[in-house]
């Protein structure tokens, strides 16, 4: 049933799917690719570190859920997607939006609630959208995006579109009825969905073991007759490889696949979260397997990147993000007279 299942990928243990690639030279295509993965992960992290600061300063409001620690998942999954594919994400979706190509300016402006944001300022952090990138949004009801992703896949299948729909959700969603209804429907109807479960071990403050009778989430997806396997979500190369295999399988067979991406968020659930439900030592343990450090170290060892180059990427990103912040600050607010726009479509109905 499952291909190459690797049970119990745990922190501290290198993933079977991430063999260190060969000693490619710094100028090789592989090295350039890894550099790009590194840059994308660093973009997400620097961007979010900045948003945390802005949140504390009161410039960003609402809920802000940070992805820091989980960057390898979004970056790796995105590598398997083309412009024809759809993404349905959650409220912790800054990373997906950025790697999908929504500009840092548009995402930052959205967090500021400005009219230039990627959702016109109407959505905020939890509801990033971009129709031109088939980014069907961040959904803030846990499990709420799954049925919709199945529907997108159904439409694609009925229309004969080539794309797959990547559906992102967390371990918390697996306890929701909508998860099980959608697993069943997608498998029953052979819908081309790539289910990506980001298992970061906590549903807000409730640990995996305290909310699931069966904590092997891939196993539960498998019970719907779906190919499913766990992946080391701290290793971007492992994620990329697994995502490519799964996406190709979905494309080829038109059947849904399921990846359980085992990862960890360093930050609290949201900014206003005392984070009392876990041991600080646990966080430190996971930080030892930080996806950015891990990849950078590997590249350094292979001679694919120098400290200076690393610092230069970092500086360049910092500059870009600073510009996004400045642009967001300067951007206009939507006039209050437009308040009731976007409730119904304009024009005759």
């Amino acid at each position: 049933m499952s291909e190459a299942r690797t049970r119990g990928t745990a922190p501290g243990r290198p993933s079977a799917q991430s063999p260190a690639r060969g000693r490619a030279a710094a100028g090789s295509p592989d090295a350039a690719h890894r550099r790009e993965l590194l840059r994308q992960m660093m973009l997400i992290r620097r961007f979010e570190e900045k948003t945390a600061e802005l949140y504390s300063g009161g410039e960003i409001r609402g809920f802000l859920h940070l992805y820091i620690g989980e960057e390898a998942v979004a970056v790796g999954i995105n590598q398997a997607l083309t412009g024809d594919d759809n993404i349905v994400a959650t409220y912790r979706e800054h990373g997906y939006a950025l790697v999908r190509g929504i500009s840092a300016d548009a995402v930052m402006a959205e967090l500021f609630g400005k009219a230039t944001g990627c959702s016109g300022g109407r959505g905020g952090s939890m509801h990033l959208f971009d129709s031109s990138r088939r980014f069907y949004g961040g959904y803030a009801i846990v499990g709420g995006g799954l049925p919709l992703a199945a529907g997108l896949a159904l439409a694609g299948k009925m229309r004969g579109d080539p794309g797959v729909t990547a559906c992102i959700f967390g371990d918390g969603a697996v306890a929701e009825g909508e998860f099980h209804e959608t697993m069943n429907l997608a498998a029953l109807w052979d819908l081309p969905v790539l289910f990506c479960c980001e298992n970061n071990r906590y549903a807000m403050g409730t640990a995996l073991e305290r909310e699931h009778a069966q904590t092997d989430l891939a196993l539960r997806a498998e019970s719907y007759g779906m190919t499913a396997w766990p992946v080391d979500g701290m290793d971007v190369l492992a994620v990329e490889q697994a995502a490519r295999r799964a996406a190709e399988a979905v494309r080829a067979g038109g059947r849904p696949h399921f990846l359980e991406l085992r990862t960890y968020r360093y930050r609290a659930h949201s900014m206003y979260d005392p984070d009392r439900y876990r041991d600080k030592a646990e966080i430190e343990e996971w930080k030892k397997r930080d996806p950015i450090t891990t990849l950078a170290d590997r590249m350094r060892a292979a001679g694919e990147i120098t400290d200076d180059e690393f610092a230069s990427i970092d500086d360049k990103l910092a500059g870009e993000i600073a510009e996004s912040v400045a642009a967001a600050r300067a951007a206009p607010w939507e006039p209050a007279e437009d308040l009731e726009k976007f409730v119904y479509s304009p024009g005759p109905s």
Partner: protein
Amino acid sequence: MSTPQPTTYREAMRAAIRDALQRDDRVFLMGEDVGRYGGSYAVSLGLLEEFGPERIRDTPLSESAFVGAGIGAALGGMRPIVEIMTVNFSLLALDQIINNAASLLHMSGGQFSVPLVIRMATGAGRQLAAQHSHSLEGWYAHIPGIKILAPATLEDARGMLWTALEDPDPVLIFEHASLYNLEGTLAPDAGPVDISRAAVRRAGADMTVIAYGGTVGKALSAAGELAAAGIDAEVVDLRTLRPLDDATIIASIRKTHRVVLVDEGWRSGSLAAEVSARITEQAFYDLDAPVERVCTAEVPIPYPRHLEDAALPQVPGIVAAARRTVA
């Protein structure tokens, strides 16, 4: 060719679905038992044979999943018609209807509209007790972002669906289960109708009865009785419960100055309450009697016939309320 033909509400609805499937390849019907079974109210009987299982899709009993899939399919370029057996079951899909369908256009800053139609049976009168009989359309009419229709006539059963499918936003159609057997005649070329205006079903001068869906027939019967007593009642059928057609409502009040609102929803926080508030806001100085309401008693619908009858708005109650307004 245009001689009206005898038909029923059910057949008119089926003709509307067939017409939509023929007009537009993007249209498909999905829901529980819409295919082989033919629909729990037999609305889609025969369509599976005609259009095949791709377009007449039987779903698992997963209201959230198939309503959500309808939303996704609409986002993905299709024009789904999702059938939910009865309004009570739609509560299982409430997250999808309200948090997604109604909100997507807004939270995406206008990027994603959801051209979806959801049909469901509503209402009591068939001794189906408290989990198959409620009238929650007024509740849905509270939600911005969706449109709510209540066809009460054969013309509307035949004509509202296509207009709803052409609407870029989600539309919910509530079909009162007692209407499916309603008989009447319909022009063979009957087609789409507007979904934005209320309709005056009977013109009158002395007072107005406002009803919708399953209670329009009762309102018209009451108007007949009132006419015999020398009271000339006007009957307004709301047709579209959201957005409400204030203009037609208020014009009638300005004419008759007296009104009875009939609503199969419970009185507290009902659609009738909303209409009453709008009348007070917009036509206060035209009222010559307090607004009267005839609503369902505030109990879950009971099983025994006599108690169910007692719970629902009935003709004598409408007549009595109308008489109070002109007493």
